């Protein structure tokens, strides 16, 4: 049990240190246009990748869960209609929830 506590606290310390490291980077490093551009594009790349992985995979395999995909479809439709942010996420969750409750997906 003590070993598990060490693992829990080491993970917490490591994760916090990595978060702090990003915020502590010297401003002159970000003055380079290419580094700046990389920092700008990183969230776009990581969040797009994360959205894809969370909506279309499970464990190590591609998993096309119909309710989840329908929820993502609803989000994209709401975005195309210029719906406010909260409407987009509610539409996504509600679509998946209703399909699952109905046993359709």
């Amino acid at each position, binding site marked *: 049990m003590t070993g598990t506590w060490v693992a829990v606290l080491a993970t917490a310390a490591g994760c916090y240190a990595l978060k702090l490291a990003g915020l*502590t980077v010297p401003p002159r490093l970000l003055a380079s246009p290419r580094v700046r551009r990389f920092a700008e594009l990183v969230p776009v790349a*990581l969040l797009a990748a994360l959205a894809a992985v969370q909506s279309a995979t499970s464990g190590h395999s591609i998993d096309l869960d119909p309710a989840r995909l329908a929820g993502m479809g609803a989000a994209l439709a709401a975005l195309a209609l210029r719906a406010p942010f909260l409407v987009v996420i509610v539409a*996504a969750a509600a679509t998946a*929830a209703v399909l699952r409750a109905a046993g359709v997906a």
Partner: protein
Amino acid sequence: MSAQTATPQQAREIRPVRDGIGLGIAVGISGVAFGAAAVGSGLTAWQACALSLLAFTGASQFALAGVVAAGGSLLAGSAGAILLGSRNTLYGLRLADVLQPRGLSRLLAAQGVIDETTAITLAQPDLVSGRKAFSATFCTLYLTWNLATLAGAVGAGKIGSPQSFGIDVVGPAAFIALIYPRLRAGRTERAVALAAVAIALGLTPVLPAGVPVILASVAALGGALLSPAATGGPA
């Protein structure tokens, strides 16, 4: 004050806070799934709560619980979980510019540098809204995620899985919604996002969970080298 009498100026000031609180609550609820999974893996409820309070980054927390469940090496498990946290370092590079935190506020803000706060902060049109959105999302999500972890760890998961409420779709839908304006505005952004999706999905079958998403940052590197001109986002 009713919505009808709010001026556009007031609406601009309220929106980042309202969106941040909404996102924080919706995503925070999935902490129930973490609490339940952690206890099911053999962590104690206290250890599950300690991870949510101190590590506060979902991917790393699930990764450590998975290693404990599999009876794997705890040292390798911690190292893997920490590796997954490196995503937050990359976010910090960008957020440092918007938040410009100093001293104690930097130590506090650091704990809040995660996927959701980054996405919502960078979706704001200016620095002031960006900082408001960061604080509102961080505070709400921290509170909800930790309460939900506790609830899941003591058995609330048995009442109904977050999935039956569609909570598993909230994260991905929010991420797409928040980068959508950037995707509309820039060709490089669209190419980077598509390449990142291809890298992450292509590597998912062959690499440990979480690693493909980190490697998708290579797409951002490619974009920065091929097209250094900047577009959009707060400052």
